[in-house]
């Protein structure tokens, strides 16, 4: 079991605490002139995404987390798992619902996603910041209406629903900001 000593603590280091993988967000060395040294750290749980503060006695060891961030290509969803592939090694990974979470509605085959692996398995999948998706269903717009005011809902090929300007029609390709879940523009493809 690999371990880290508190004197190796720094932002980005991945550790295991109470069975969960954490990343160190901030590390502060605290020592009174006459007294024990401690490390006060802010750590983010990579499973729940919650940040907590923890104190360590300086010189203590913690278990290192086998956490790796890689880019994977999304392949398909088989109804239960979402399948990804590392484009250079062709190694395949499958991610469950907890790992994919809200990203599921933005995933289109061939898109490259940032994936966090824990012990070799996907822990968290991040959809790309911008995706290009086809409108599969939306009410027809009024020809010539480019006012854009108000907008209307549109369902995209992945099942995601976004508000779009009134002039957008079914079959059009849109650029969407996945972090905000918002229409950006027509795609120039």
């Amino acid at each position: 079991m690999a371990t880290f000593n508190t004197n190796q603590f720094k932002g980005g280091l991945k550790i295991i605490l109470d069975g969960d993988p954490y990343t160190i967000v901030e590390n502060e060395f605290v020592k009174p002139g006459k007294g024990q040294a401690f490390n006060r750290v802010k750590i983010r749980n990579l499973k729940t995404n919650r940040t907590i503060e923890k104190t360590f006695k300086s010189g203590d060891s913690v278990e290192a987390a086998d956490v790796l961030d890689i880019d994977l290509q999304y392949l398909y969803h088989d109804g239960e798992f979402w399948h990804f592939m590392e484009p250079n090694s062709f190694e395949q990974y499958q991610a469950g619902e907890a790992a994919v979470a809200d990203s599921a509605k933005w995933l289109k085959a061939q898109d490259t996603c940032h994936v966090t692996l824990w012990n070799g398995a996907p822990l968290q999948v991040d959809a790309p910041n911008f995706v290009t998706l086809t409108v599969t269903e939306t009410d027809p717009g009024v020809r010539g209406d480019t006012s854009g005011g108000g907008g209307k809902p549109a369902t995209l090929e992945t099942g995601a629903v976004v508000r779009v300007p009134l002039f957008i029609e079914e079959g059009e390709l849109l650029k969407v900001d996945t972090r905000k879940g918002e229409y950006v523009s027509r795609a120039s493809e």
Partner: protein
Amino acid sequence: MSAGPRQWRPSAAPAVLAERARLMGAVRGFMHEAGIMEVDTPVLVCAAPAERSLESFMVADAGFLVPSPEHGLKRLVAAGLGPIYQLGHVFRAGEVGRWHNPEFCMLEWYRPHASMSDLIDETEALIAALTGQMSGHRVAYREVFSDCVGLDPLAADAGELAAAARRLDVAPAHMQASDDRVFWLDLLMSMVVQPTLGHDRPVCVTGFPVDDAVLIETDPEMPGTGARFECFWRGVELANGAQELTDASVARARMDREIRLRESGGLPPVPVDERLLDAMSSDMPRCAGVALGIDRLLALHLDLDALADVLPFAWDRR
């Protein structure tokens, strides 16, 4: 060693280094006006202080780098030199962080025949002269501790302190309940109490617990308390002063205790400073002394928030 490109440039901005120079001059001016003489005792010495949590750098075939000029200054006091100060670099191994650089600048001074209270006055006057910040407001350790933690630090046992640490969410991960009172007091003081101190102006806290006292007098009026004070500004420890111990046999017994605790804590043993004990046995006058972190004072005065911002070359690029 930090990753990343090698940095040859200074850590502190040139304007800050100019302020640093001005501060050094102002310190010397204050000391001169106060009738305290400058001395420069060795930074490379034979013996490291016997303290359970202090790690001194060892220099092969020569000894140790001083974590404080205390021992040399006390020997000079015992030799009859009168009020003296040292302004220079000291060294503490393994202490790197926002407010810690293993090599830092310490101002330390001693006044024979003075009381701790006299030195608190003088520390406050010094800080005011250097930064314009008036303090003049003192609190008792017992009071601030019990206000923040809800326990009497002098009476509570290790179990109660540990429970408080857990309740306040500062108990270290992987910590088995420790029956070391000093450990829990240090932890609660550093994590819970200290951040609340000196928010607007520097504040001096008096009456630290005597459990880990080595070279300080105990307070005759408050059992369990040492005649020791610390000064804090914006949650940062600036200075540490005391009524100094002059009884060599008490000192030796405490040093032996600290050396045993070093060993059980995994720190290498250190030789006892016999020359200091000789000086203490030689009719050393009652005296009080203060050690103040110059870099921290400068950083806080300039509203900077790390030691590296006031050092010519911080540890990572020395």
